[in-house]
Structures are given as C-alpha cells and as structure tokens.
C-alpha cells in the first residue's frame, strides 16, 4: 500500500494550480520545516512530478522535480532525525527533513519513490503503526495497548473468564464479603443500646452482658470470615495468575522468531513476571476491596438513613470534600516517595558500576573522583529521602485530622439534635461509629481508579501476547517424510527482515544429498539469513526453498526440524548437566547413546575427567566449561540427533591449536553422509566443501568448488589470501 496521507485542502490547491489534474500517488507529511523548525511540510508524488509543499496560510511548492530526472532516493541519517534526498545526475538534493518519529514512514516512502523512479511496481509492506488507531496516542514500542482507549470493562470480563473454573470459590468469597460486611454493621448499633439502655439509666446488668457478648460475637465472627475470605482470595488470585502465566509461556514458546525480533526478551520477561503479578494483585486484593468497600458504604448509608435521615444527610455532606482533600494529599505523598525510590535506583546503579570497575579505578588512581561522584549522588538521595520522610511525617497526621473532622460534624449536629431530644445519646455514638467506618473505604475508592487502570493495562498487555497469531508450527504443512535424503534447493529467493533493507536478492543454488556447501562472505552478507530460511525460522518473501523437491512450506515444520541438526557459532548450553545438554534434542536417549555421541565429538575424554563426569553441572550458559568444551558438547548434541541436514555455523572462538584440531576432527566425523551447510571460517573446511557460495550484499557473486574459485582470482581468492595472512598471524600468536 502506498503511503497516502490525507492532504490538507490548501496544499492540494497549491499542487493543483501547478499541475492540474495530476494524480497524487504518494503523499506524506513531514514534521520539520526549513531550518529544522517543527511544523508540517508535504512530500507528494503527483503524476510524474516530485513535489515538496509547505503547509500553512499560503502553501508554497518549494521543490518541483520531474521523476524521470531522478535516478534514486536516499535517506540521510542526521542527529535527531533524517532527510530524504533525491539523486539527480549524481547530485544529491535535499527534499524534506523529519524527526525520528517519522523515520519508519519515510523509510517506506523512500522505497516507494525509488520503485516509481525505476519504473517498478510498488511492493506492499505493512507499516509498523506506533500510534493508537482510535485516539492517535503514541504507543509503547512493543505493545498495541493504548492506556487512553483501553476498554476496561472488556478486559475485566475476560479476566473474570479465567475465574470461571473456580466459580464455587468465587461465589463463596462474595457471600463471605456481603455477610461479613453486614455483620460488621452491627457493633455501632449495639453500642447505641449500650449507651441508651445501660450507661445512661445505670442499670440492666443482664442487658450489659448480653450486649458485650453480642459485640464479642460479631467481632469474632467477622474476623473469622475476614480470614476465611482473605485466604480464599489469595488462593483464587494465585490460581488465576498461574493459569495466565501458563498460557502466556506456552504462547511464547510457539511464537514466531519475527515476533521475537520485534520484542526484546526483557519486555517479554516483564510480561511474564510483572504484568501477571499485577493481575494477581488485582484479583486477590483490589477487586475484593472495591466490592467490599462499595457494599460497606451502601450498607452504612442505608442504616444511617433509617436511624435519622436528617442527621445522615448532614453527616454525609462533607464526605466528598474530605475525600478530595485526602486524595490530593495522597498524590503529593506518592510523588515524594516515587522520587525517592527513583533516586535509590540511580544510587544503586552508581554503586554497582563503581564497585564493578574498582580495579580500573585503582589502576588509574581515580578513587578521589569516585568518592566525589558517590558523594553527589548520595546527597541527592539523602535530600529526596528527607523530603519523602518529612512529607509523610506531615501528611499522615494531617490526613487523619482531615478524616477525623467528619466526626466533629456529627458531634455538633448530633449533639444539637440530642439536646432537643430528637435523638438519643446512643444514636450519636452509633453515628460516630458508622461515619468512622466508611472513612477508609471512601478513601480507598478515591485511590482505586488509578490503581485499577494500571492493573488492567497490565492484564491487557498479557492478553495482547495471548492474542498474537502464533507460528502454529504444529499445524503448518502436512507432508512429514520419515526420512529425508537431504537435497536442498533455493529458487530465486528474496528476503528481508525489515523493509528498509533486502538481505537476500535472487538467491538460487542447489545442494545434492550428502554434499557440503560452504557459505562465504563478509559479516552481514546474508550467510546466516540463508541458514534461517533453511531452518524455516523465517519464510522467503519471494521464491521457494525446496527440500527433496518439496516446498519447505508444505513440510510439517515440527517434523521437518527433527531432521535438522544445528551447531551454532555461539555454542548455547543451558544450565543443567552435561548429559542433559547432549540429550536436549533427544530426551529419551540412553546413557550409552549419549556417551557414543560424545566420543565421536571428541568430548568423552574430557567429560569423564570432570569430577562429576556426565553429571557435571555446566553452570549458567555453560559458563563453567571452556569455549572448546562447549563447542564439542554442541557437536555431540547434533550427532545424537542424527540429522539428514546439518547446519554448521563454525566457531571462530579463540581456542588453542590442539583443541581446534579436536573440534575439527569432530566436525569432520559429524558431516559425513549429511547434507551440510557450513558458514566457514577455517580454510580446511572451505577445502572440504563440495561447493562454495560467495555472498556479497545479499547476492551470490561466485559459485563453485574451491579450486575453481581459487583459479578464478575473484572475490573468493581475495578473501582466501586475506584469510591466510590473518591465520598466519593467528598461528604466530598461538605459539
């Protein structure tokens, strides 16, 4: 879809005057005017002219170029923004500048104008929207959830859907909540009788005992219900967030790698931990509190109006004002504490940083400056801390004073009514009790909206992941061969991770079963991308990848990958034992199979030397093993899997010569009889390859066997020469 933004009438008129009847094919708004001042400016492709037009009172067309004169368009990256330029006869002409906010959009515009200039059709790529489609608010980088438009009701309903399996307990919680609140309403009423019928007449010991027993009974009962309800709510909250986390994790495992490209793991981890934790708080704490508070307020209001509606009105009138006041005090308090916690975070970073580089500090004799730097941050922290504490020390007593003032009104008006004998002294005492009872719930409700919306936003972020279309790796494709011969063919494959740049261009080659293909080229040339397409981590944009003559898209992905073995450049081990790591791809492997694989991988001998042998813990990411050891474990893992197609991203890790030789030996054994794709760095591997592909900027520039290419004295020969020089240096170094 071409970029076609709604052009203002005045701009349209200005263009129309110059080129009547020209069809607008591309139109995009930039956010910088001349001199880098914020403001709108328009870039248009109208008919066969590229136009730039100011926006304002009287729009002026400032640039008007015939498309035919332009060879291509480029983006010039600036500091804080970028400029779109047209190249005319080798000259670069600035068309329009924009801030980082529009970088993505103008990347697309450039692509489209470029296509138009070269007479190619405009390729369709979806735009990465970073604004809410409803209100236009800028969204977070890895979410589509708009805090302004969030439909709270819908999220809440969906969340409650998770409670459905536990309906019985939920009902019980509600019953306990209502009855607990109702029982809680009794004590002030009992106090009224205590005052009116026992204390004032100074008699009725029996009634006194009865009333005290009643008070004791209600408080024991309501405490018991409170405990029961709280425990149930904790159980339910935990249960629901457990279910949510389980769904979330399973979804994460099945999501496509494209999704992972766009969402850093940190953001996903926080959804799994913090966001689902927020949901738990909401369910276990906030929701019951909200419901309980509302019930309590309604209950108290009813009782007050029944007792004396005039006094009830008088007692309740100031409540909203008190709430507002306490709310604003609360905000100030929270701000002060947030500022304090933030400074704690910065303080923590500083100390962490400083202590981690203590060796460097000493080596450069910078202890005094470190102490000064620490002093400044420490002082900043002290100041914020004092402010927060002092605000607390002032606000809390003041808040209680404000909240308590409600009862002053009851004393005043209730006292007057009592003097006129319109109500009893007991009524006044009961009123005081009730008014006191609703202070906290009212205060809580005044805070709850913000609280609630945060928790619901968290819940929505969780749902967002759950709603993301997964790879459905299980369901894709239907052909699931029991064995693969391992013939691989790429036919005119085009591919790019981002629309800005195409990574593979018209890549075609064919590998016979059991043959070895070496991929050669500078980093970024597209070697790893070919591997990614072969493993079907991504699908080609255009062209086909065929395995044994079948399109890879028709193969059952889940089954297909069972025939793949991958040894990556950065050998990835997970924390666990060596045996577990080798058996990762085949969890039911017997110890003998594991040892056999390790033997072939030249790993067995060093493994048994470990104190715990195959049961040795490798540490986080295999940190307790050397680079060469990790590599050989990964090779053993691939051998155990016995794949038809092997992917080898060779390590360049600096290992000593003997280790290198052992790894090399293991690799040679591993690739025997398998179709192998090797991203080769070692000369020996390059020589062993049946065919070599030399990639440059996503294109195959040379294709053939080692000798052929060497004789050709082209790119490969050049790389080879450079390689020989550096490996000579490397050899010297190793000696």
């Amino acid at each position: 879809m071409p970029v076609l933004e709604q052009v203002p009438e005045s701009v349209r008129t200005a263009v129309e005057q110059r080129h009547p009847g020209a069809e607008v094919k591309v139109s995009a708004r930039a956010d910088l005017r001349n001199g880098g001042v914020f403001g709108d400016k328009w870039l248009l492709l109208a008919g066969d002219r590229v136009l730039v037009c100011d926006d304002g009172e009287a729009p002026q067309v400032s640039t008007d170029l015939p498309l035919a004169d332009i060879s291509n368009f480029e983006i010039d990256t600036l500091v804080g923004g970028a400029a779109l330029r047209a190249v005319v006869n080798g000259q670069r002409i600035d068309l329009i500048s924009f801030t980082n906010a529009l970088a993505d959009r103008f990347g697309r515009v450039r692509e489209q104008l470029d296509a138009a200039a070269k007479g190619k059709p405009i390729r369709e790529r979806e735009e990465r929207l970073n604004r809410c489609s409803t209100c236009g608010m800028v969204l977070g980088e890895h979410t589509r959830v708009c805090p302004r438009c969030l439909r709270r009701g819908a999220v809440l309903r969906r969340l409650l859907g998770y409670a459905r399996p536990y309906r019985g307990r939920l009902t019980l919680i509600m019953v306990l909540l209502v009855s607990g609140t109702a029982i809680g309403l009794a004590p002030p009423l009992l106090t009224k009788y205590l005052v009116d019928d026992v204390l004032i007449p100074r008699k009725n010991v029996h009634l006194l005992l009865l009333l005290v027993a009643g008070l004791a009974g209600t408080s024991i009962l309501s405490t018991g219900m409170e405990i029961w309800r709280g425990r149930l709510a904790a159980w339910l909250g935990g249960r629901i967030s457990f279910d949510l986390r389980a769904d979330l994790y399973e979804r994460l495992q099945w999501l496509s790698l494209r999704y992972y490209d766009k969402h850093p793991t940190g953001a996903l981890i926080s959804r799994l931990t913090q966001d689902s934790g927020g949901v738990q708080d909401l369910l276990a704490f906030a929701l019951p509190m909200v419901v309980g508070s509302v019930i309590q307020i309604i209950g108290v209001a009813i009782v007050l109006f029944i007792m004396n509606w005039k006094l009830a009105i008088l007692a309740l009138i100031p409540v909203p004002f008190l709430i507002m006041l306490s709310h604003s005090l609360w905000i100030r308090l929270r701000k002060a504490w947030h500022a304090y916690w933030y400074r704690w975070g910065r303080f923590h970073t500083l100390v962490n940083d400083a202590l981690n580089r203590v060796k460097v500090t000493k080596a450069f004799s910078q202890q005094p400056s470190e102490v000064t730097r620490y002093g400044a941050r420490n002082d900043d922290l002290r100041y914020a801390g004092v402010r927060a504490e002092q605000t607390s020390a002032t606000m809390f007593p003041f808040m209680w004073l404000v909240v308590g003032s409600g009862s002053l009104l009851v004393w005043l008006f209730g006292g007057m009514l009592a003097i006129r004998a319109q109500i009893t002294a007991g009524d006044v005492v009961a009123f005081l009790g009730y008014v006191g009872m609703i202070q906290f719930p009212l205060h809580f409700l005044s805070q709850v909206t913000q609280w609630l919306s945060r928790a619901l936003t968290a819940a929505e972020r969780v749902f967002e992941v759950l709603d993301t279309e997964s790879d459905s790796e299980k369901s894709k494709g239907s052909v699931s061969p029991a064995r693969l011969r391992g013939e691989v063919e790429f036919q005119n494959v085009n591919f790019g991770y981002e629309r800005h740049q195409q990574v593979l261009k018209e890549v075609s080659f064919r590998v016979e079963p059991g043959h070895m293909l070496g991929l050669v080229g500078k980093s970024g040339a597209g070697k790893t991308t070919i591997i990614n397409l072969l493993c079907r981590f991504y699908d080609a944009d255009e062209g086909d990848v065929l395995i044994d003559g079948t399109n890879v898209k028709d193969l059952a992905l889940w089954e297909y990958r069972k025939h793949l073995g991958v040894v990556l450049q950065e050998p990835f081990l997970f924390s666990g034992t060596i045996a577990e790591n080798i058996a990762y791809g085949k969890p039911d492997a017997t110890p003998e199979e594991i040892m056999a694989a390790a033997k072939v991988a030249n790993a067995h001998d060093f493994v048994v030397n470990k104190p715990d042998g195959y049961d040795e813990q490798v540490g986080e990411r295999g940190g307790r093993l050397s680079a060469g050891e990790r590599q050989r474990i990964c090779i053993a893992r691939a051998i155990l899997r016995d794949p038809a197609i092997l992917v080898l991203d060779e390590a360049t890790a600096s290992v000593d010569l003997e280790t290198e030789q052992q790894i090399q030996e293991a690799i040679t054994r591993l690739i025997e009889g398998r179709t192998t794709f090797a991203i080769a760095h070692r000369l020996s591997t390059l020589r062993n390859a049946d065919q070599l592909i030399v990639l440059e900027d996503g294109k195959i520039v040379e294709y053939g066997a080692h000798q052929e290419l060497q004789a050709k004295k082209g790119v490969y020969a050049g790389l080879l020469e450079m390689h020989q020089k550096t490996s000579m240096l490397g050899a010297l170094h190793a000696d």
Partner: protein
Amino acid sequence: MLTKGPATPLELRYLDPEDVHIFRGEDGLVYATIRDEVTLISPAFLRSHPLTDPERYISIKGTIPKEGMEARGDEFGLLRNWRRLDPESRRLIEEQLARRYLHPRLTRIISLEDYSGVQVAVFETDRGVREVTLRDVRDNVIYLDSNRLLITDAENNRYDVPDITALDRQSRVYLARIL
C-alpha cells in the same frame, strides 16, 4: 605545514580559520578549500562534542574530487572556532550544522497530562511547539549534570533541557512530577 590529503593517522590537525573557505559552487554543491591547496566536495561538518561543547572543534570530513578518492569520509582537520571564518563560510557552515543537528531545546512545558504512567505533554522549544508522549520517562532521561537533562520521548526524539533552574515555575513543577 599543510600536506595534501587527510591528517596523519596519529596526529590531530587543527585548521587555521584564515585558511578555510567554504562556498557553494555553480553546481549547487558545497565546497571547502583549505589554503587554496585542497578542495573538498560536499564536506561534512561534525561537532566533536555536540552536547557539552557544540561550538568548538568542528570536524571537517570529505573527499578530494580530483584525486579520485572514494567517499571514505576522512577527517581533514578540526576547526577550534568556526565563528572566525569569513562571513560566507560562516553562513554555510551554520546552515550545514543546523541541518545535521536537530537538537531542540526545551524552553517551557505548556501542559502535561498523565494516563496511567504515560504522559502527554506540550513542549515549547527553540524549534517550536510540539506535543510529545513520554513513556517510562525516568528510564529515558539522562542527567548530563545535576541541572541539565536530556529527555527522550516515546518516538525516539530527544529534547535538551540545558538548565532546569532556568525554567519557569510551572515547567519545573511539571518536571518534578515526572522525575
């Protein structure tokens, strides 16, 4: 002594403002001549310290057309003070710097509203007024010193607050609310 070609690999070369002339050729491109010995085509003018010392140490990089070098962008030298150039050169260098460095300075916060931890603010800057969205603002603020901030908004645009204490009271209140 000025030798042709880029500076030696080990030594910085400071250019004498008297020797440097920047002009726009008939073909519309910007050229820089250095002591009439070297002519650079479409040179780049880069600030060495864009934030802490934007006016000094302008690096001039470029290509000598007649020697047919590739556009490698080698540094030819540094200008300690470009304001001592002749007026035409000064105008062009200023234009080039303004084009490259979109570096808005915050002068006032006109309004700020909070939506569950995401703030929508209207910033007045030396480049005009703009509505910005701030997200996780505390993680997107860099303190250059105790009174100078760089704020990055949700769209990856950066705003410089050269001196908090120079802002008006209302702006400082808004800032305090988010930091």
